[in-house]
């Protein structure tokens, strides 16, 4: 590579390494548990949260299941294992959470969300977006509740749902991701602290975008939230989660479980903008993002779509999946995963076709820079009964610089001949020739690089809800262009 170009790439890499803007910490008083995990801790957690008996038992069972399980190691990433005995499993700001009025929220916390660009006052929010703010383990504030209630939509913290809507929670929680599904789902089931719950009743189009902002603040706490979205027959909803964390030298574990249930003709669109702190150039610190996300298209003609822009975390292991059970149901996965510095991402999806004439689309775009490692792992399974089903997968990788890696691991199995699976994969490098071509037309080097990247991810970003497209572009800018102009 020529010197000038490698300068260009270096510049790009340094732009990519742009200072993490969300790395500040908030000074709040915490109500913490002793470190470590045991049946007592789990019971105490449930007690502090004033949970009903059935929930306590659910947790205790999950804890014992987890104790028997082995930490997985099959993915393409190496890291220091989390120390489960040295972690905080409950950490909540002392001031009582889930308040009725904004005025009661700890001003420091309110300021935190302001700094993150998420003002909690309804009048200042994006119109048409309801927000649930989760600070460390606890839901702090949910906006627009009344307006949603008018439409019959329930949007509240998981803690509240367990108390107010136990029949729904009992029916659907762990119905998509069983407790024993994997090591981290079992752990989450035992110690999850909060999260968001949404329920969209029959034939209802949720009147606004729903979103949750997850913020890890406490250095020693793990974050284990649980999200459950149920769309009844003919219901539709679009939900977005955003995530940030302060910069600490120690790794922090984030092990969430997200479950989506779509009944007949229902439509769930779940978008993620994940920007957890990813550690420094030497790979010190950053979040371990080990998340189990799964949706089930339970009813016929139902539709679940996952869209994710993953830019953060030191290590990401995440495979948002769709079980296509209802006939004619549709599953989609659109993903942009950006890794820089020493980040490691092993992410992808699973599409499990069970119903007839089910369709799935996978569009995965990986961008790797620095010394990072970016793997796509995707499973497409078409069962014997899923006649007439179709999958279309594209997974493209773009490399920036010489020291990063991109890998693709497709697992495809089809058990009937009337179905079709199409898989395309490409790997390209942000090339000297592309940059020169655009510069020859008068475009500056930074703009040229940004154009190439934007062109690369366009098919995915256009799937994000309009309200967040701008935010996503901004994030990519910060991550990939930084000092342009």
């Amino acid at each position, binding site marked *: 590579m*020529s*010197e000038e*170009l490698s300068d*260009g790439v270096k510049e790009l890499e340094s732009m990519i390494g742009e200072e993490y803007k969300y790395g500040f910490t908030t000074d709040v008083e915490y109500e913490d548990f002793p470190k470590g995990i045991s049946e007592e801790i789990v019971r105490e957690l449930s007690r502090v949260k004033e949970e009903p008996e059935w929930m306590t038992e659910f947790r205790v069972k999950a804890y014992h299941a987890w104790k028997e399980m082995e930490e997985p190691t099959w993915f393409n990433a190496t890291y220091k294992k989390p120390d489960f005995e040295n972690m905080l499993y409950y950490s909540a700001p002392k001031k009582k959470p889930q308040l009725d009025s904004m005025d009661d929220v700890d001003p420091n916390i309110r300021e935190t969300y302001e700094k993150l660009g998420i003002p909690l006052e309804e009048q200042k929010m994006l119109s048409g977006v309801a927000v649930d703010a989760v600070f460390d383990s606890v839901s702090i504030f949910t906006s627009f509740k009344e307006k949603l209630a008018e439409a019959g939509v329930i949007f509240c913290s998981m803690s509240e749902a367990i108390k107010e809507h136990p029949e729904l929670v009992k029916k659907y929680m762990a119905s998509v991701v069983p407790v024993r599904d994997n090591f981290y789902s079992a752990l989450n089931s035992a110690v999850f602290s909060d999260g968001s719950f949404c329920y969209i009743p029959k034939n209802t189009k949720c009147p606004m975008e729903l979103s949750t902002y997850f913020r890890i603040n406490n250095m020693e706490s793990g974050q284990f939230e649980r999200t459950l979205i149920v769309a009844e027959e003919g219901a539709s909803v679009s939900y977005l989660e955003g995530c940030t964390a302060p910069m600490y030298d120690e790794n922090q574990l984030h092990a969430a479980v997200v479950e989506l249930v779509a009944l007949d003709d229902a439509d769930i669109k779940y978008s993620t903008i994940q920007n957890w702190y990813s550690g420094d150039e030497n790979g010190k610190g950053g979040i371990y993002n080990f998340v189990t996300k799964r949706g089930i298209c339970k009813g016929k003609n139902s539709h679940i779509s996952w869209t994710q822009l993953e830019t953060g975390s030191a290590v990401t292991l995440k495979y948002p999946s769709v079980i296509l059970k209802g006939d004619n149901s549709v599953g989609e996965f659109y993903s942009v995963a950006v890794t820089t510095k020493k980040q490691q991402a092993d992410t992808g999806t699973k599409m499990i076709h069970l119903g007839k004439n089910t369709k799935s689309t996978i569009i995965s775009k990986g961008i790797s820079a620095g010394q990072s490692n970016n793997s796509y792992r995707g499973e497409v399974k078409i069962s014997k009964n899923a006649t007439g089903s179709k999958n279309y997968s594209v997974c493209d990788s773009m490399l920036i610089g010489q020291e990063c890696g991109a890998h693709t691991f497709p697992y495809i199995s089809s058990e009937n001949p009337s179905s079709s699976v199409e898989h395309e994969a490409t790997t390209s490098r942000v090339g000297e020739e592309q940059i*020169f071509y655009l510069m*020859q*037309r*008068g475009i*500056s080097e930074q703009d040229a690089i940004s154009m190439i990247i934007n*062109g690369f991810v366009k098919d995915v970003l256009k799937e994000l809800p309009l309200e967040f497209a701008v935010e996503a572009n901004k994030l990519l800018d910060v991550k990939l262009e930084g000092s342009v102009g």
Partner: protein
Amino acid sequence: MLEIKNLHASVEGEDIEILKGVNLKVNAGEIHAIMGPNGSGKSTLAKVVSGHPEYEVTQGEILFNGEDITELDADERAHMGLFLAFQYPVEVPGITNKTLLREAYNTIARANDREELDPLEFEDYITEKLDVIEMKDQFLSRSINTGFSGGEKKKNEIFQMAVLNPVLSFLDETDSGLDIDALKVVSDGVNKIANSENAIVMITHYQRLLNYIKPDHVHVMMAGKLIKSGGFELAEELEANGYDALEKELVLNGEAQ
């Protein structure tokens, strides 16, 4: 307009000299043709003049409108009105031709304190330019060169030239990959763009193109140098006798090493 003096250039960071003392002068209103066998350095010359970072100028200078541009970046040279129609146009997926051209047009306008065009004005402007090259407007909304046929890519280069209206254009083997009808359309387009204030340097292998775009000056490039210059008759001579004959003649005259 353009004056290249004793230009030597190597592959950046390596000891491979490709241009070995090129001299060339191009005035406004002129059309030049550079001919030469494969590997003689024609594309390299065009890329070095337009500022490709892969090459390093080790000696000599490139004056453009009196200014030495050897240290300028490719985009700065483009702002001054330099254009290169690539021998192998590059694909950029996900960005449409129109987006690129509006961005390019306005960036160049800004750099020259000219007025930028808003999207609607640009729409009118660009639509009018489609005629120059008989291109369909669906080209505008397709990703840059992505999935274009060889001929379409070449046409697209000349279309971009028409839109950006450069002062000096290098056309690198624009004729290759074009069938005879397309060649005619492209040549007509170039002839429409050419005027007394701009200049064109065509790089070609064959005389074919020169039948449609008449050059005022013809140069022969061999082994990194322009070894002979003349009028249109030089092209005819090459077509008849080939490069070997010319080389022998020059050796006999002691003009080549």
